[in-house]
């Protein structure tokens, strides 16, 4: 009697082991994707559309790979700042325009609300300045944003935050932080959707 139970148990055990091997042998689609490690050179894909916007090579690499980011300075209406912010006193004939009254500052919450010089350089107005006192070029503003928004920066470097410009292939060109976010009030404003949907048939 005991012998028979033992035999049954042995049979069951071997069936289980065999079964688990069979399961492992059937590779899922996800495993195949995760295991594909052969490098793919994006630049071999012929591109229909070239990125025409001005770009700069980023100063922070992603896995030692440098990529490009949309330049910012030409997009800033009144750059260079030093053309007004000189040693001379400002003659405010166009007062409203010159005082940046269009800027609404809604960045940082409650007691931690930001003021101009949290990001802008105190003396050299053509630059930004981070908390370590480093001078930061407007084209590389991601260096500044990333000091607080470090999680977003990590994702942005690798592509889970932000987006590429025009192409999935070719040299990697991505949007700068301030291309999408207004740095003075970075949250997207509420608005009506671009269209509406009718019921599916």
């Amino acid at each position, binding site marked *: 009697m005991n012998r028979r139970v033992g035999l049954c148990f042995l049979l069951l055990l071997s069936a289980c082991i065999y079964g688990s091997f069979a399961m492992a042998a059937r590779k*899922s*689609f*996800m495993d195949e*994707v*995760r295991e*594909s*490690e*052969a*490098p*793919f050179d*994006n630049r071999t*894909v*012929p*591109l*229909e*559309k070239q990125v025409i916007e001005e770009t700069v090579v980023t100063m922070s690499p992603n*896995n030692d*790979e440098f990529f490009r980011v949309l330049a910012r300075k030409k997009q800033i209406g009144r750059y260079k700042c030093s053309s007004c912010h000189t040693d001379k006193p400002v003659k405010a004939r166009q007062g409203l325009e010159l005082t940046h009254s269009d800027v609404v500052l809604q960045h940082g919450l409650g007691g931690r609300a930001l003021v101009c010089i949290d990001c802008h350089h105190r003396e050299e107005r053509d630059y930004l300045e981070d908390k370590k006192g480093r001078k930061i070029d407007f084209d590389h503003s991601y260096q500044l944003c990333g000091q607080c928004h470090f*999680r977003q920066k990590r*994702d942005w470097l*690798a*592509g*889970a*935050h*932000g*987006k*590429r410009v*025009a*192409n*999935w*292939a*070719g040299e990697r060109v991505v*949007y700068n932080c301030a291309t*999408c976010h207004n740095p003075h009030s970075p949250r*997207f404003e*509420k*608005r*009506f*959707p*671009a*269209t*509406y*949907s*009718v*019921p*599916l*048939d």
Partner: protein
Amino acid sequence: MSSDKKHPKESDIIKLLEGDSSRRSFIKNLSIAAAAGSAALTTGCIPSLAEASTEEMKLRWQEFFKKHYRLMTQEEKDAAVGRLERLAKLENNLDLQMGSEPPIDGVLYGYGFNITRCTGFMECVTACIKENNLDRKVHTQYIRIFEMEPGKLDPSTGDGQYYHEVPVDNKFYMGTQCFHCENAPCTKACPTKATWKEPDGIVVVDYDWCIGCRYCQAACPYYGRRFNWGKPEIPKDEINTKQHYLGNRIRPMGKMEKCTFCIQRTRKGRLPACVEACPTGARVFGNLLDPDSEIRYVLKHKKVFRMKEELETDPKFWYFID
């Protein structure tokens, strides 16, 4: 168009049959005549032999008897897209650039959708309508955006017809479209093999071989497919003339259509129109076989899930959370 223009005249068929006396060509002609007869009944657009003397009719004749796309050689594909370009010029004075670009080696497309980022602006939907020449009259949309209650992850529980300022506090937004399943049930349901998965993973429809039976639509668990009940209407100046045979060329009435990951763009290295239009960067697109691609980063480092994973359809569309 008068009715005798639509149908082959009896005399034409007789002429066709009497034209050649060898047995082989007799049978061949007979089958063509029969096909033309039945085709004229169903589609009403097959020209008679006499009319085939004009260039337009000849092209339509050749178009009607062309092969299934997958059986065509590259030369035949080139000829077919050339015919479609010429026909568009003759019929509607449109200058199309019709493509038949093949898949790119080493590329399998994958898509990521960040449900933390999407704010429901629906810029993707409008971009898709324009890019893919969707019917404006009945408001066909490949992409749907659902406004969802927190904690729910099934779009059927969400509101797909919202129209108010977005984003609404304490709601999130979830987009659906064809997920280009690796193990696609829709392709198995098609009786004419008019829909299939390309080597780069894009599930396509050969609109000329689709008979409009809608089996595929019934088989799709994700509401990924759309049917043309009528002739699509698009204002002429809004027609996207950069087209692909398997992509955004204008579908006739009675055909099945769906998202093709913008095959006319992606096979030329471009992002799909929805990804390019998204103002919040909620959409990620790229090559699943490239270990350095953005989509692979998302799969590796983010919490991802797919819809109805238990069906084992293996969609190539992942939702993720920041």
